[in-house]
């Protein structure tokens, strides 16, 4: 486990400089484009564009870290979807278990590309947006301050608890505790000595942290100001407009009959 679990890559690229809200608008545009088309060729265009952008902003290491998951999801989707798709076109493969038609193949490929595009799109967002920007973006989108505060605090506590979980695991291993067993139930039960210390350490913090907050006049109902306020500039408006154009354009093309299997 790396010391920093964050996928954010600190660079000074065009995407990094954008406001979290405009990045979200762009992401929605890409997601809708990927969603409305079923033809693998049409889905491939936003997938390839998103992947290329991810590489440009320095996200290769992140993609490499997750490539196993992307590949596994792609393959499972590709294997599962033919069984749920309507057959059509020439038979491409005939086995004792069944046949694979051209339509089933294209349908499955389109769906698997969609899965990959969603993951790569999300990865592009978290690669270029820091935790603080995500929380500030949520606040400026109108989420209540208390909710944003909880998300921000959880994001801050998460690496601490992750480290604590790993420390407990190592400490128990040093005492001879082995995780695993002969069957799934034994394997799960072997986690109990690891979970209890993590739980109790975390919960003990609640009282003291709540008191510390209240001692500093913490109040979720008052208006808040932020030190690092990101302006929503002309470039952000242009990017948001591009995201909207993607949504409108892709839906229009889909209604015209393009991009279907």
């Amino acid at each position, binding site marked *: 486990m790396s010391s920093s679990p964050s996928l954010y890559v600190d660079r000074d690229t065009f995407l990094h400089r954008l406001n979290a809200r405009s990045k979200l608008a762009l992401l929605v545009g890409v997601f809708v484009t990927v969603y409305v088309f079923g033809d693998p060729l049409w889905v491939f265009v936003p997938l390839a564009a998103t992947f290329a952008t991810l590489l440009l902003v320095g996200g290769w290491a992140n993609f490499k870290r*997750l490539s196993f998951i992307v590949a596994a999801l792609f393959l499972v989707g590709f294997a599962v979807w033919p069984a749920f798709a309507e057959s059509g076109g020439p038979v491409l493969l005939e086995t004792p278990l069944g046949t694979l038609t051209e339509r089933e193949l294209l349908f499955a490929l389109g769906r698997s590309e*969609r899965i990959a595009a969603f993951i790569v799109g999300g990865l592009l967002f978290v690669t270029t947006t820091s935790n603080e920007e995500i929380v500030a973006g949520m606040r400026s989108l109108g989420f209540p301050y208390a909710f944003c505060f909880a998300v921000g605090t959880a994001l801050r506590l998460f690496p601490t608890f992750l480290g604590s979980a790993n420390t407990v695991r190592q400490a128990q291993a040093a005492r001879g505790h082995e995780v695993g067993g002969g069957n799934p139930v034994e394997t799960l039960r072997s986690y109990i000595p690891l979970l209890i210390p993590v739980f109790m350490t975390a919960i003990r913090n609640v*009282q003291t942290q709540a008191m510390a907050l209240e001692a500093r006049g913490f109040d979720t109902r008052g208006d808040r100001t932020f030190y690092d306020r990101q302006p929503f500039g002309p470039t952000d408006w242009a990017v948001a407009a591009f995201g909207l154009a993607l949504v409108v354009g892709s839906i229009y093309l889909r209604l015209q009959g393009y991009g279907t299997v």
Partner: protein
Amino acid sequence: MMKELVTMWRDTRMIMLVAVVAAVYAALLIPFAGLVIIPGITAVRPGNVIPVIFGILFGPAAAWGSGIGNLINDVFAGTFGPGSLFGFIGNFFFGLIGYKLWGNLGALSSGVEPNFRENAGRQLLEYIIVVVVGSALCASIIAWGLEVLGLFPFSVLGTIILLNNVIASVVLGPPLLYLTYPRIKDMGLLYPDLLRDEDLPDASASRAQTAAFGLAVVSVVWAAVGIAVSLGIQDVPFGASQGEQFGAGGSTVQIAIGAISFLAVLGLTVISGERLSKLLD
């Protein structure tokens, strides 16, 4: 009605509990991968027990915390995307079910605090019902959402999530509650100690019981029917109607079943109550 889900945000300790539950949930999902079923896709994760036991202990704070924790896990695991919305909602209800059901299951309830010290057999039965209902609801919401998005058929994800959640929660929940409940109670962090009396749901015992049984039935039936429809039972093929009817998402029948079930769950949640506050010594 359901006002505690909003008013809890006024209490600093409840807000901190949301953050802590979210962080612990996310932190335990990643390093303790548990028993891998399909590499890269799914594993029986010990962390899945958190929404259930924290839901019983911390009520609405655990519901919000479970939703946020799952979202954080998506962000850090690289699976953040449109499906994360359904992951948030599914895990929110996974955490909420224990709070709504414990003590409200009539003859099936143990009638005592969830400490697994007295009436342990009855507590185990009640706990298993809570786990199955919560897991079924969580699995149905996520599987339905991802089918609407056209990512995975309901039967595939619905079955996997249901089994993962049930196995981890049933095996780990009782010993964890046995060991942690008395300590958390002593710390004064149970939700009845934190929420003001006027913020707790004011549902009568009979209404709370009806709502709890309603939630249990809708959740389990939704999961069962969703999986059956997805597998093409009763001549409702999953993929056949996709291109023609909805363009890109799941089958129209599946979408309708999900929409009706979810509305029923929302309605039942609104009229439901809680019971732990009356079981405390």
